[in-house]
């Protein structure tokens, strides 16, 4: 009598393709997964609890360390929440600067995703091409605020550092460069037969499932749901620009791939328009009280980070520190669909699907 045994395999927390210290316990029948249990919390630093003892300006560097691939959008969601509470006006130049760095950050973040995803699929070179191009953006940020990863750039009421005209010119030069590189990316990867066979139809779900699980970002839009907060609930200056929101139809990894690449193009469009409209002078900090004390009450704001809807909920008792601070982290929410998607897939598809969701463990564990 032949007896088969299930194989309990521990993937992570030290595994090259879990994108950080994330762990999945999978039960394998041969190479087919019959059960998957994600284990998270290895990178939990208690950001939300720590924030309760910090003033709002002091919390900003902590947000850098949540989604460390997209620190600018995290900065923004916090300062935006505080500004909404205090009804502060932000100078136009500062708002444009924020928008420019956020869109650059979106491109940089998608580049990291693109590179590492291809590395997961087994192609080595795209990773280095993506990082070469991301390096341009990181250098721009370094020039602007002196940091390459954790920028601590935005402040309640404005931004910390003003940009020189030379810096803006560099951003202008970056746009045609990146457009050219995107064509190269498509030529190298998007039509590759092996790559298409690997991701087409993998990890598919429909719009209802996506909404039930609270997915957002490319994970939601790949099913055809037209929900981008930049368009749906415009914040910052997004209502001034003309851009498309790429949508998918099949809800599989291939659609998510195409959407993210297209979002880079749309970000470049937004950047082009933003640099045309860029005010030539003006303040970068609005009139902000010396001590930031939002009035007692609650506020929830959300913005579109590269990974989806990132939200910030502040409960204030009128003190310098928040009474309670809560971040809605898109990586954490998007990850919840993983166990459902993995059942019946192979080990190889585990990596494809996990990579397709695009998590940053710093944000999952917060």
């Amino acid at each position, binding site marked *: 009598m032949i007896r088969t045994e299930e*194989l309990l*395999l521990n993937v992570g927390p030290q595994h090259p*393709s879990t994108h950080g210290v994330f762990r999945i316990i999978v039960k394998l029948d041969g190479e087919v997964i019959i059960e998957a249990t994600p284990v998270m919390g290895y990178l939990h630093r208690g950001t939300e609890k720590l924030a309760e003892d910090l003033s709002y300006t002091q919390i900003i560097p902590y947000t850098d360390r949540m989604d460390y691939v997209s620190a600018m959008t995290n900065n923004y969601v916090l300062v935006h929440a505080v500004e909404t509470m205090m009804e502060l006006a932000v100078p136009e130049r500062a708002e444009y600067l924020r928008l420019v760095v956020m869109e650059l950050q979106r491109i940089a973040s998608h580049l990291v995703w693109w590179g590492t995803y291809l590395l997961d*699929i*087994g192609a080595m070179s795209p990773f*280095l091409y993506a990082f070469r191009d991301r390096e341009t953006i990181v250098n721009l940020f370094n020039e602007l605020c002196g940091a390459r990863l954790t920028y601590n750039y935005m402040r309640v009421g404005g931004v910390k550092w003003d940009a020189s005209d030379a810096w803006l010119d560099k951003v202008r030069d970056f746009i045609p460069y990146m457009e050219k590189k995107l064509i190269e990316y498509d030529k190298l990867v998007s039509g590759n037969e092996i790559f298409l066979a*690997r991701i087409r139809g993998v990890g598919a779900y429909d719009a209802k499932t996506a909404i039930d699980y609270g997915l957002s970002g490319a994970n939601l839009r790949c099913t055809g749901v037209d929900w981008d907060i930049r368009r749906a609930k415009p914040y910052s200056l997004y209502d001034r620009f003309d851009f498309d929101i790429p949508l998918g139809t099949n809800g599989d990894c291939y659609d998510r791939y195409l959407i993210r690449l297209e979002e880079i193009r749309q970000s470049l469009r937004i950047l082009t328009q933003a640099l045309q409209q860029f005010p030539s002078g003006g303040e970068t900090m609005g009139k902000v009280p010396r001590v930031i004390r939002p009035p007692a009450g609650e506020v929830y704001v959300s913005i579109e980070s590269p990974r989806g809807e990132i939200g910030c909920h502040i409960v204030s008792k009128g003190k310098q520190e928040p009474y309670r601070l809560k971040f809605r982290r898109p990586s954490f929410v998007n990850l919840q669909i993983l166990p459902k998607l993995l059942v019946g897939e192979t*080990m190889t598809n585990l990596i494809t699907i996990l990579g397709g969701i695009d998590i940053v463990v710093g944000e999952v564990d917060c």
Partner: protein
Amino acid sequence: MGDRLNESLSWGNALIFTLWGVVLLILVLGFVTYAIYFERKVIGWMQHRIGPNRVGPLGLLQTVADILKLLIKEDTIPRKADRVLFILAPALAYVPAFGVLAVIPYTQNLYFADINVGLLYYVALSGITTIAIVLGGWASNNKYALLGGMRSAAQMISYEVPLVISVVGVIMVSGTMNLRSIGEQQGDWFWQWNFLPQIIGFVVFIIAAVSELNRTPFDLPEAESELVAGYHVEYSGFRFAFFMLTEYVYVYAIAALTTVLFLGGWQAPLAFLDFVPGIIWFLLKFASVVFFLIWLRATMPRIRVDQLMGLGWKVLLPLSLANVFITAVYLELFVK
């Protein structure tokens, strides 16, 4: 050499054989050292990097330093591993890899062993390495290694078959399995070489060969991003080096075999160029095949297990059988 093989074994002959074996070993080690350097440099350039350039002039001693590092590394064997098999596996992987090199001719007169069933010998011996890889994966007592080893077994069995059948066409055209004769029979002009008349066989052979080598896009047994390192995940130090060595020796073997079987061996591509020594042509063709393998690695994503098996059994096998059929019909109708 050939004559001596037919004589009865004496101390003198044994000494000469050993000496030639050592010469071949040095040749192969030299190749592996610089193939790794070449690979790292070429991939580096393709990826906008510099590649090794610190150890020695132009980084030429980088691989030497790497091997030295592996030599002096602690040799770890997992406590629950099957000790005997664990130690045996790397050696068992390497010996056939080295053994197959004996039959490869470099020019008409430069070869180590002139065996009439050279091709059969190659195919038969190279299959043993698979067993070593499965053994290594099994003996490690590690789930990732086991998965890697099993994948390897499945992959190698699926691709050995089309690999062998794809060269049957060449054997039929040449009427011999002797690699030296196969090389000799290909014409003076490059369109007379086997790769054009045997184009189906050539393509199937290249795909199956890359798969046999476990190289991108068929590097599933060691799939870095899924199985971490696959079958050799528990190996360290010199045992690990032996697995790596085996891989590169097979690169050498497959590149040489492709050159001899399909690319005219040591023949000049155009008849009037034959004043250039044959060994130069052989090395040029050999280097191009090695470069092609490296190029693939920098370009391709990895194929999935089920797609790999599908490709092997449903596409390559029928294609190679069709090639045998077409060759047979051609020989029957036009040559006889």
